[in-house]
């Protein structure tokens, strides 16, 4: 089985792109399944089911969804193998911009959209910077110039990545992406012993542990304060 991790900011077009790409993969006779990770709510599983794709979903609730992802990815992988999938795609909404669910040996795809503003590439951390393929969506509604400027900003933060433009509505570009996602020589049996591309912050503060009261005396563990003084920020 092949495994691909797809991540990206909320509503950037991950599901749209994955669905269009699966269309092309199916035409090659490949069995594809999806596991969707989100925080509080998702309807994506219904969309995948409607398209006849095997799907599971996991909601992280009170945890950072990317932490939740790592704690579950081995079980998810075993599910895909048991279902006899040729390719398993995980979709997760990057919510904290700090974490990313990418595993070193697994193809990592980041989906971002042209509408999110040209400063977005700068704001997204490892989720964008350490991916192998960056998909830029919603090019159909912005000008050529804006597409070029946005793509060049993405290239500045991740020059090693393959950058592709895909229209999530029409699927233009999805066939081309599908050719990069499956390699019949790859056979993943387990992820045990594999490593993340980028460490995730693990620090806990009192609020992580259920504290609800505001005020210094209730704050324990990893507490950090905003610099409210007048001097200019650090580098």
């Amino acid at each position, binding site marked *: 089985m092949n495994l691909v991790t797809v991540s990206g900011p909320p509503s950037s077009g991950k599901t749209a792109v994955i669905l269009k790409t699966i269309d092309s993969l199916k035409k090659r006779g490949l069995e594809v399944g999806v596991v969707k990770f989100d925080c509080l709510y998702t309807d994506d599983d219904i969309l995948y089911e409607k398209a006849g794709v095997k799907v599971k979903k996991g909601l992280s609730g009170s945890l950072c969804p990317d932490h939740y992802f790592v704690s579950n990815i081995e079980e998810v992988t075993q599910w895909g193998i048991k279902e006899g999938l040729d390719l398993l795609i995980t979709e997760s909404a990057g919510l904290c911009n700090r974490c990313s669910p990418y595993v070193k040996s697994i193809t990592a795809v980041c989906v971002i959209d042209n509408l999110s503003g040209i400063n977005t590439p700068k704001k997204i951390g490892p989720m964008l910077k350490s991916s192998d393929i960056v998909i830029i969506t919603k090019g159909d509604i912005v*000008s050529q*110039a804006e597409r*070029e*400027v946005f793509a060049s900003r993405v*290239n500045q933060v991740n020059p090693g990545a393959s950058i592709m433009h895909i229209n999530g509505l029409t699927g233009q570009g999805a066939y081309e992406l599908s050719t990069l996602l499956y390699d019949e020589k790859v056979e993943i049996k387990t992820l045990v012993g594999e490593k993340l591309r*980028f460490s995730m912050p693990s620090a806990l503060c009192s609020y992580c542990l259920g504290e609800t009261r505001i005020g210094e005396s209730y704050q324990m563990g990893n507490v950090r304060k905003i610099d409210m003084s007048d001097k200019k920020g650090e580098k």
Partner: protein
Amino acid sequence: MITVQDIQQKTIADLFEQYPFLPGFFEENTLQVNGQINEKLIDYLKFLDDEEEAENRAIDRDQLLNSMTIYISQMLEFLGEDVDDGVHSITILPGTNKSGEAEQFGELKISKSEIVCIVGPTGSGKSRLLADIEWVAQNDTPTSRTILVNEEMGDKKWRVSSGNKLVAQLSQNMNFVMDLSVYEFLELHAQSRLVEDVEGLIAKIIEEANKLAGEKFELTTPITSLSGGQSRALMIADTAILSKSPIILIDEIENAGIDRKKALDLLIGEEKIVLMATHDPMLALMGDKRIVIKNGGIHKVVETSDDERNLLVDLERMDAVVQNMRTRLRNGEIIKKEDIGF
């Protein structure tokens, strides 16, 4: 080939001088230099040896150095490209239609400054043909077509590079979404392309755009308040002059607020290869030839004959009549049969 070793022993000041595009990389990766411009890169990056700092900033030192090296190599290659290395033709080699039957044309070569229209019913495969060209298909798309660039097997670099796309696109439903003035917008685009004479190019673009648009606009106008015609005029002029892509794909040009003939002349004047999907007879006849798509395959390639081109004059006259009526209706006038004039 530049290596990490090459760059990390240099001072930041030296690097910025040698690679004038590097400050943009620092900026985009949230690296502020401040007083440390004369430090060696390797020393400057020492702050990332502190595990907590590296975690806070979510920057991995090795990854960053690697990226910087790749970026410098890419940009040097990009800047070093000669105009002569440019694309002067693409050639489509036949594949199969949706029923798997071979397409019946020998090969189809399209050269610089040529306009080729693509016509055919909905779902016939027009977009697929454009996608084959963009992907430089090598018998590896559903149509099994092959696309040659300059009569040679296309380079796969066209497929996924950010600054070096084979194809630029103009389509009907595009908008400007940035909150900038025309000048700031063009400046931003010019900077991302690393062009030298920014001011000169901006002046040229606004001049050409104003030739295309019905009503003139200024460099200080916010792009989001341009009219539909003005936006299209600016997009076309900007793409013609600033986009590096040698091929322009156009998905219809609306016949309002913009001189379409001049727009096409501008594009081919900038030595672009123009491919245009259209249902409009006037646009179709402005092409040098048209590709007729049926059932996923190229069914026919028709050269626009002189007879057809002469018809264009009549079509334009008919169009002018309709436009004139529109104006008169708007002004509250009554229109009569005589207004049609033929």
